């Protein structure tokens, strides 16, 4: 008797929760799931029924180059972001709160600044007659201007700049949870600064590194504005390819196929992170 009552209560409760969630679920379905399904349909229906779009996409070296380049850029940006972001996150974690608040505010303000404005600013800075080249030449470090824009270097610099907050914030969070007494213990055990870092600090910040890296990698895979403006024609990224298919060639079939390949890769990576680095499950 009691059991039935309890089950009934649970059912009602679950039903009520679903009721509250319904508008949100409908919104997600309408604006996210339906378009993706439509894209999926068009990728297998246009110009005729079949997988020809996927065959064309994965069978052509030109398109494969775009895939490869996309992963290369995302990989390099992720790596550079972690390498540059880690020391910043560490400093933020150990500096007095009143200072770290100011630095954090600056970092977050930069995130709120318009993406196009920031990318154009880099174009100006990096171009052949830009401040950076002029300064380096003025100092006599180089004779001819460096090619910093319209290539992989430009894309990496521009995107790393945009992605940095996404590694700094989770890393700082994780590093802050590490008790400094543990590092003191390591020091008395005989570990110098490098050993402390490699054997203790780095392994303990792995969840933060994984979270930041995944976020940056996934965001980079689908990036459009920065590669389009700072990259060269020879290193096109997937998002640019999708845009080209849809805008210039009005080929929704190919565009949809390329977008879905990107989506599948992203979801796969997300699944890996959930499986191995989910803080809720403990690593």
């Amino acid at each position, binding site marked *: 008797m009691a059991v039935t009552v309890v089950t009934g209560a649970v059912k009602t409760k679950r039903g009520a929760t679903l009721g509250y969630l319904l508008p949100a679920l409908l919104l997600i379905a309408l604006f996210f799931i339906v378009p993706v399904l439509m894209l999926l349909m068009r990728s297998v229906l246009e110009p005729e029924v079949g997988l020809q779009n996927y065959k064309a996409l994965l069978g052509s070296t030109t398109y494969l180059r775009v895939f490869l380049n996309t992963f290369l850029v995302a990989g390099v940006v992720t790596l550079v972001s972690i390498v540059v972001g880690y020391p910043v996150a560490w400093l933020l974690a150990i500096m007095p709160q009143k200072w770290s608040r100011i630095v954090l505010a600056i970092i977050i303000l930069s995130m709120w600044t318009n993406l196009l404005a920031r990318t154009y600013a880099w174009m100006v800075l990096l171009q052949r007659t830009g401040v950076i080249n002029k300064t380096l030449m003025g100092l006599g470090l180089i004779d001819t201007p460096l090619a910093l824009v319209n290539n992989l270097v430009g894309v990496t610099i521009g995107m790393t700049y945009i992605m940095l907050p996404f590694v700094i914030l989770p890393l700082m969070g994780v590093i802050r949870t590490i008790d400094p007494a543990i590092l003191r213990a390591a020091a008395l055990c005989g570990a110098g600064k490098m050993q402390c870092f490699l054997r203790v600090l780095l*392994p*303990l910040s792995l969840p933060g590194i994984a979270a930041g890296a995944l976020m940056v990698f996934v965001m980079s895979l689908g990036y459009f504005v920065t590669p389009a403006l700072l990259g060269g024609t020879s290193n096109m990224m997937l998002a640019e390819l999708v845009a080209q298919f849809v805008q210039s060639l009005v080929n929704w079939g190919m565009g949809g196929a390329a977008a879905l390949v990107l989506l599948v890769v992203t979801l796969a990576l997300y699944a890996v992170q959930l499986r191995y680095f989910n803080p809720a499950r403990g690593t």
Partner: protein
Amino acid sequence: MTQPFLSINGIRKNYGNVTAVKNVSMDIAQGEFMTFLGPSGSGKSTTLYILAGFQDPSGGDILLNGQSLLSTPSHKRNIGMVFQRYTLFPHLTVGENVAFPLRIRRRPQAEIAERVKAALKLVRLEGFEDRMPALMSGGQQQRVALARALVYNPPVLLMDEPLSALDKKLREEIQFEIRRIHQETGVTILYVTHDQEEALRLSDRIAVFSQGEIDQIGTGPELYSNPATRFVAGFIGDSNFLDATVVTSNAGKAKLALGDGAVVEGVPLHGPSAASSRASLMLRPERLSLSRVSVPSGIAVTVRDITFLGNNVEVSTATPAGVDLAVRLPFGHEAISSLARGEQAWLTFDTASAHAFA
């Protein structure tokens, strides 16, 4: 004179305008168990951290076998330490935690395995090699930390309130283990605590810290029977304090007036003394006696309460001026049966067991 094993010479430490440690000096013999005892904020941890190399002193020096340690960084001092907080490496197993100092020292694999096993055996945690620290109790974690701190045979082991996070029963159990490990290994231990019972149970000698300074260093019985300052008298053992006036003093013994005409003679006097200066008379409750009949040199008191405590009886009394004096009489003492709440009694004591602090 032979050179001391470990010598702390006039250590000072200022944080801005806060003086954490004023002037700490002591010599520690090899194999000694020395405890820093004092209230929170008295500079015990700071002194220990200076020994560990986590802080640089503002002045003074630390010599191990005659060599200054100050220019050696923490990781080269070869000192062991157990901390107040749990500091095992959470990503490593118990075995790897204990192996850590040996891996840093690039010892051969076979030696590491053997020494890790021996160290875990020493702390009675054999077979726990593959356990993760998060799955162990606080007491077990501190024992692993002890194994990790001893596995490389450091000449000195520092312990900063390692048991303060544990409950009383577990604390006593591990105190006993620490004592055994000290005897088995012969390692020199510097131990910090604010718990006098812990200090008395463990230590060969105790340094009593007060406001960044050492008030007195000595064995437990020395500190108890001959405290150098009022602070030490109040911190070690139980004590009563009575206001008094110095009548005369001679060769460290004083004649004191206690008001109400009571006068005591031959009380050891500590501190600067001048006739008619004020002093504080310290009486141990267990060194006092009560009598129902008037005694000429006795202090007249009123009995407030009588509490049976098993092997002794605590009698709360008050002087006419309203100062509370606790008296602890052994069970079966002749005065007990004749005492009653609210009645007059006379308090007497052996003046040599009392102490006056100017």
